[in-house]
């Protein structure tokens, strides 16, 4: 399944623009502010129904216009037309002309993995941001665990309320037992998922031929036999703080680079490569569980990478069996041996197997 064409009308800085795509790697080149990310954002809005920039709907419409339109032509078994029409108040999405009302199955039907340095703060973000990413991946891979997590949170809130109103210790123990029962399922599943991600990451690092060692690690204080006792011992401090300190809701996900936090010792280029490797591992896992390779979107994917790393990345992406959309302000050398289709905003440069042809598909950003 892949996107064949993206059409934009009055969307952000684009009055009229289109990007024809191929099944493999698609590279979009353009200067800063030319609207490269807007193409990725259009795909994101079409699938999720909202922007990753957290901006309000009025900002999506082109200056002095009332409405915007996004048309995505997908190819699965046959052509699929996904359309987004929006004004300054709301967004309406249609698939094959029919309005989309249920989001749940839709995300599984159109799997996308998105990475951007501006919006999704993966390595630079807080442990909370990374845990949210891991939880979201866990629920995508094993949907029934979302219900377990909601039940866990409910039991935790009941315990906090019981603590606040000084309920009897037997009553507190009931909620704590519920938390441990559901929390252990979540913790074990999370550890299994981390192990799988680390396996995939090791493969990715081999593919990227990068001589770096890193792994994801979850700091869980809750898998030991003593978790229930720990909850009992923390009653006073939890009551004082107004929150439960330990549990799957507070796991800390860290990225270790040679055993240390990646942010403290790895270079920006290494961090970028690791981020992309994690996204590729995420794609592999979603393919394993959902039986469909996601569309991988890398915003400013070559940022901080030297020409060697760029070449390694292109080599790896060329082997990816799904579709890749990658934006960058500039690129040094793609290499003649790689099948990568590149476009430049303003005037399109199509390079297939190294053969360059020019066409004026995309309009200069307003």
């Amino acid at each position, binding site marked *: 399944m892949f996107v064949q064409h993206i059409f934009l009308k009055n969307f952000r800085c684009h009055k009229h623009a289109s990007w024809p795509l191929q099944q493999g790697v698609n590279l979009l080149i353009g200067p800063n502010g030319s609207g490269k990310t807007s193409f990725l954002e259009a795909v994101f809005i079409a699938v999720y129904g909202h922007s990753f920039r957290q901006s309000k709907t009025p900002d999506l419409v082109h200056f002095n216009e009332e409405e915007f339109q996004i048309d995505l032509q997908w190819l699965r078994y046959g052509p699929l037309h996904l359309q987004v029409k929006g004004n300054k108040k709301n967004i309406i999405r249609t698939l094959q002309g029919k309005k989309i009302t249920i989001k749940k199955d839709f995300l599984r039907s159109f799997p996308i993995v998105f990475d951007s340095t501006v919006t999704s703060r993966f390595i630079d973000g807080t442990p909370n941001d990374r845990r949210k990413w891991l939880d979201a991946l866990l629920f995508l891979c094993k949907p029934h665990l979302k219900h377990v997590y909601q039940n866990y949170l409910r039991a935790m809130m*009941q*315990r906090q309320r019981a603590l606040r109103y000084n309920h009897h210790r037997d*009553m507190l123990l*009931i909620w704590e037992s*519920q938390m441990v029962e559901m929390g252990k399922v979540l913790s074990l599943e999370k550890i299994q998922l981390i192990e799988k991600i680390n396996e995939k990451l090791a493969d990715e690092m081999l593919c990227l031929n990068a001589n770096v060692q890193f792994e994801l690690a979850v700091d869980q204080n809750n898998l030991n036999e003593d978790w229930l006792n720990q909850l009992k011992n923390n009653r006073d401090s939890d009551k004082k703080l107004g929150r439960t300190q330990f549990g799957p809701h507070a796991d800390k996900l860290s990225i270790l680079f040679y055993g240390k936090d990646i942010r403290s010792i790895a270079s920006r280029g290494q961090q970028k490569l690791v981020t992309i490797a994690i996204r590729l591992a995420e794609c592999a896992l979603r393919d394993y569980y959902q039986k469909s390779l996601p569309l991988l979107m890398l915003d400013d994917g070559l940022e901080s990478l030297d020409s060697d790393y760029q070449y390694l990345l292109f080599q790896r992406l060329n082997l990816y069996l799904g579709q890749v959309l990658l934006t960058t302000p500039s690129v040094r050398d793609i290499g003649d041996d790689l099948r990568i289709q590149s476009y430049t905003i303003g005037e399109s440069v199509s390079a297939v197997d190294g053969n360059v042809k020019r066409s004026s598909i995309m309009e200069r950003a307003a």
Partner: protein
Amino acid sequence: MLSYEGVPAPLAHLIEQLSGLPGIGPKSAMRLGLNLLAKEPTQVQQLASALAELHQSMGFCEVCGCFSEHNHCLICNDHRRDHRVICVVEQPVDVLMLERSKTFSGVYHVLHGRLSPMDGVGESQLTFAALAMRLAQKDVAELILATSATVDGEATAHYISQRFHAVPGVNISRIARGVPEGGELEYVDEYTLARALSQRTRWQGSGTNVL
């Protein structure tokens, strides 16, 4: 809220009262009010007397807490039922639902709610003390926990099992969960399916498994 301009005060009063009932909005209330006005006065008086009698003659059973006309409900007064088996439910309406199955021959105990500190419901708000008294006074062999399959219902069941597991001679059981009878697997949600698989029972020939 609709304005009742031009509507005579007695009718407006009735409409206001009716619209306070669950599932009835102001428009439906007005339709019901006009319908009652169009009926014979004797029919309306019968309805009025039924309403007036409801709280006078209805109450809850002193033993099990279910609906009853007198101090004891029909189920508790029925000597053909097995009084050694008590099914614990959350609400009186759950008794009516379980009775529809016509398979349970024991008696009930209604908690009138479930544990939920967020809603201000603790152990003192529920009828655990009455249940303890029943277990102490009567020879009870089994306690079936039929609270709902939610977190709060589970916690309530957990609490009962913790509190009464030491009572001699009483077995505590929990109602089963999983795929509904006559249900297609394709329409069952992921969580129920996962739970049904993890709590599968050994095949007993007829497809049913008795504790």
